[in-house]
């Protein structure tokens, strides 16, 4: 523990801490351009110079390059150091253009701040400035290379930290250039971070270009709800519109960075086509009137069919308040128990994942970085939860081994082992891994159940698995690892896989004293949805109830089943049977257009809310703006509003839980009172929420909801067998993509071009068997219709599998719930 003195103050720091970090711990902020805590030191910018007065090094030195050591006496304010830094700024500014007034970075530019702070106000250099040609880098970032001060942060982040290679350093010395080889869209789904880490305006946020200075925005902490990880963001609001999102540091969740889906996935909140008025039968009506009409209609149905005929459906993008209020209101009014998740299998998988997240096993996203072996079952990190891929890369950089068992063609920005196995066999291989990785002795302490379970697992050696050798190799590596981590998806896998992933983690923990478990879930608040759902509740069951006439009225709370329900025709026919469709939503969805009664609800930016991410972390989002139609839309461009009235236009939207409360005639206190009422109700009645503090007192990094260990759920070999041989059939798997398949971010104009074209993936050997080649237009005949898209033949995916991204431009919803099997003869090439 080196002890040193910085500016006459003593501090003890951990070994190998750089002096710049030691100073930061004392609250002394040494200027820096190239140094970044996540990227480390390179000593390129020379602006963190301090004077070492005593100790092993002496004189003016770079504080980011020198480890803190005993007996060091450091001065950041020494005259020589200050003068040195002043001159560094001056030469960094030699070539920097005088374009601050038209530069988007102006106002939050580190270089600008340092130049002003360093006292370099007048330019002495009269020579020519070096200039560069800028590049087109895609719809997200603007490139302006003349402003560059060569700190290397961008290439270090892009190549070293995030593992993509198409942007880098070119040329040398005075001509050093940061960019791509030629114009083109950046390949990394983390490229937006360049605008955060660039200390000046070389990379600036393109969608919000020329819209405002940092101080023009209302900036508010927020959370990303475009996947289940719940990364922290800062939302910037101007003229009643969210205009920009930046990454917000979070020690527990995302660290310093976020992915592009999260950064740019907020535009749904300010869309012009967003409905802002309550509607009855397609006509805009005042809010109170719509409530009145709806109450009457519901009462009528209740009288005729019984209150059980009213079914409510929440979603995984509801805030906890909405989910709880929905549960509460349904109980009060005697309506059918609400469902939240799309189908039975998903409900079951999410629920079992929640119950298996035992306190000793669960890890946060940041803790993924510390693992030394990561075993992934049925998850595609870069497509399902991009920030997980970034965390896994950090583990890989520290030497971790990573293996993925998944039928899809998986691409990750680091070296890993991919075993493409069909979904049917995934659980079997997971169980085989248990046997190869953990010895029988270690199992004993987990009890009788565990040993019995262990003994039932079929032995790898005696079996004819096609990937037998790889499995035993992985098992060996897992056996010798110190800090193993199991990552498991819940979206495409069979119901047994999340269970087995947890069992494996338990066994590893018993053997090594340490093991982690990390699930991915289908939606920002899928955890909450799983907690509120009963095992038998799902939208699939609601549809069945509609079909058999038990349900006559459907209330969809921020849910658009048309987006994800696998059988669109069936859904349409079911909805046509209903007497009443009610939709509460903030996006103008297909379901909203079908609604008899529609209520506009607020987005999380307008009302805040609590969301529980996939590890059970309840995180609060404060309200960032008061709502209303963005000024750019009310005035038609930048003109002031042309129609004057009291209040803000488009302000009628309320939170979904407020509308629910009105429907149920709950006592309408103030919004805050009502919110804490439902919160307290939830804490009292729903197991698992008991540990939560009163609303408004959640810490910034949230609180993890812990349900405790549930030994009864452990160790079951039920349903784990080798899948039947589907020689003549393909299994169709609809999957998620980084862009273009998630509902909210699919509304974002700037992400549209990044999504790629709809396609169908097939294993190359399968394609050759069927005489198909990469790029052929395919038609796949299903029981409910035909899917047409281009074929992409991939080497690295499971044979006997067809993978279809649920692309918004692809009409894929033509399958039944459960497994979709396609006989070979139904796959044809369109000529």
């Amino acid at each position, binding site marked *: 523990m080196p002890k040193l003195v910085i500016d006459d103050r003593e501090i003890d720091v951990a070994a190998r801490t750089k002096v710049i970090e030691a100073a930061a711990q004392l609250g002394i902020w040494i200027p820096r351009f190239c140094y970044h805590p996540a990227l480390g030191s390179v000593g390129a910018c020379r602006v963190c110079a301090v004077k070492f007065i005593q100790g092993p090094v002496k004189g003016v030195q770079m504080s980011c390059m020198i480890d803190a050591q005993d007996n060091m006496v450091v001065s950041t304010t020494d005259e020589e150091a200050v003068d040195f830094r002043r001159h560094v700024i001056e030469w960094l500014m030699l070539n920097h253009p005088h374009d601050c007034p038209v530069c988007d970075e102006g106002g939050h530019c580190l270089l600008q701040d340092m130049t002003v702070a360093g006292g370099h106000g007048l330019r002495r250099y009269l020579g020519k400035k070096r200039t560069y040609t800028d590049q087109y880098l895609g719809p997200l970032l603007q490139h302006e290379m003349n402003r560059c001060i060569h700190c290397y942060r961008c290439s270090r982040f892009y190549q070293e930290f995030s593992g993509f290679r*198409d942007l*880098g350093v*070119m040329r040398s010395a005075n001509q050093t*250039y940061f960019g791509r080889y030629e114009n083109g869209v950046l390949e990394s789904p983390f490229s937006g971070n360049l605008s955060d880490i660039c200390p000046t305006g070389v990379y600036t946020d393109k969608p919000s270009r020329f819209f405002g200075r940092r101080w023009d925005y209302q900036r508010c902490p927020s959370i990303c709800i475009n996947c289940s990880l719940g990364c922290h963001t800062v939302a910037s609001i101007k003229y009643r519109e969210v205009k920009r999102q930046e990454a917000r540091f979070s020690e527990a969740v995302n660290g310093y960075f976020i992915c592009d889906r999260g950064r740019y996935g907020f535009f749904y909140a300010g869309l012009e086509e967003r409905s802002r008025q309550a509607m009855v039968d397609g006509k805009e009506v005042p809010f109170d009137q719509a409530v009145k009409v709806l109450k009457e209609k519901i009462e009528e149905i209740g009288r005729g069919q019984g209150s059980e005929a009213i079914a409510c459906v929440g979603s995984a993008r509801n805030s906890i308040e909405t989910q709880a209020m929905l549960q509460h209101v349904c109980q009060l009014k005697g309506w059918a128990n609400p469902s939240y998740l799309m189908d039975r299998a998903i409900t079951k998988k999410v629920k079992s994942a929640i119950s298996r997240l035992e306190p000793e096993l669960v890890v946060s996203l940041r803790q993924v970085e510390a693992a030394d072996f990561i075993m992934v079952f049925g998850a595609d990190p870069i497509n399902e939860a991009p920030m997980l891929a970034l965390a896994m890369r950090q583990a890989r950089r520290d030497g971790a081994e990573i293996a993925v068992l998944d039928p899809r063609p998986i691409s990750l920005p680091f070296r890993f082992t991919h075993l493409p196995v069909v979904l049917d066999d995934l659980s079997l291989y997971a169980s085989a891994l248990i046997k190869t990785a953990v010895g029988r002795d270690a199992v004993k302490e987990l009890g009788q159940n565990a040993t019995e379970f262990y003994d039932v697992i079929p032995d790898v050696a005696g079996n004819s698995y096609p990937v037998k050798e790889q499995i035993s190799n992985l098992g060996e590596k897992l056996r010798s690892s110190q800090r193993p981590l199991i990552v498991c998806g819940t979206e495409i896998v069979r119901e047994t896989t999340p269970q087995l992933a947890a069992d494996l983690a338990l066994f590893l923990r018993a053997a090594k004293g340490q093991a982690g478990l990390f699930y991915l879930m289908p939606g920002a608040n899928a955890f909450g949805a799983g907690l509120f759902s009963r095992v038998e509740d799902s939208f699939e069951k609601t549809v069945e109830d509609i079909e058999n006439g038990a349900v006559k009225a459907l209330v969809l709370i921020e849910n658009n089943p048309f987006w994800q329900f696998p059988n669109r025709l069936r859904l349409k026919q079911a909805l046509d049977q209903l007497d009443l469709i009610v939709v509460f939503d903030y996006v103008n969805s297909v379901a909203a257009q079908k609604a008899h009664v529609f209520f506009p609800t607020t987005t999380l930016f307008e009302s805040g809310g609590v969301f529980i991410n996939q590890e059970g972390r309840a995180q609060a989002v404060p309200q960032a703006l008061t709502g209303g139609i963005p000024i750019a839309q009310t005035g038609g461009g930048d003109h002031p509003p042309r129609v004057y009235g009291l209040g803000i236009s488009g302000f009628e939207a309320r939170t979904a839980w407020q509308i629910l409360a009105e429907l149920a005639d709950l006592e309408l206190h103030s919004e805050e009172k009502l919110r804490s009422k439902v919160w307290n109700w939830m804490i009292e009645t729903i197991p698992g929420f008991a540990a939560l503090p009163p609303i408004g007192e959640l810490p910034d990094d949230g609180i993890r909801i812990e349900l405790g260990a549930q030994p009864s759920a452990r160790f079951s070999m039920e349903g784990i067998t080798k899948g039947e041989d589907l020689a003549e059939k393909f299994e169709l798997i609809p999957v998620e993509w980084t862009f273009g398949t998630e509902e909210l971010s699919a509304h974002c104009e700037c992400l549209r071009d990044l999504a790629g074209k709809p396609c169908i993936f097939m294993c190359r050997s399968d394609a050759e068997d069927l005489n198909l080649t990469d790029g052929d237009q395919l038609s796949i005949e299903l029981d409910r219709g035909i899917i047409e898209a281009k074929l992409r033949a991939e080497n690295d995916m499971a044979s006997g599998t067809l993978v279809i991204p649920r692309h918004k431009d692809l009409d894929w919803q033509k399958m039944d719930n459960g497994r979709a099997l396609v006989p070979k003869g139904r796959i044809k090439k369109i000529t």
Partner: protein
Amino acid sequence: MNFVLDAQEKSLLEQIKTKLPEIGNDRSKLIPVLQLIQAKLAYLPAEAIHVVAAHLDISPSEVYGVATFYNQFRFHPPGKNAVKVCLGTACHVKGGDIILENFERKLEIKEGETTADREFSVDRVACVGCCALAPVIVVGETVHGHMQPSKVEGLVLRARIEKEKQEREKQQK
């Protein structure tokens, strides 16, 4: 400027492509591969960058990044009349930079580049060893001493007329 490969260069590049597997596709082979291409083609055309990137399975920006770091690699084909303008101490004092600037203006290219018809390329050199003749330029193998801005036009014109003459003779034959 992007130069279109002529027939000979294309066939050379194809030859190199067939040789690449022998060298191996480890990324440490990047510089030897680039040197090989430059030895054959005398410069690194854009096509070659893509060939190398595909061969070593790295991104073109990495190949270009390494290639542009070193002074030994050229990205423009040498002109038939390779003009080297000396900017050593003596030539600098005698106004070599004015000569260079005149070439750049006359040929409408920057130093280090080649004209689109590949007739001229302009480079700066440090010293050609005949400082008494400063400012000096070298065109091909010929040294021109005591250069003046007014002589630049003459040199360029002479080379162009020479070329026209040769073409006429070719046609007559």
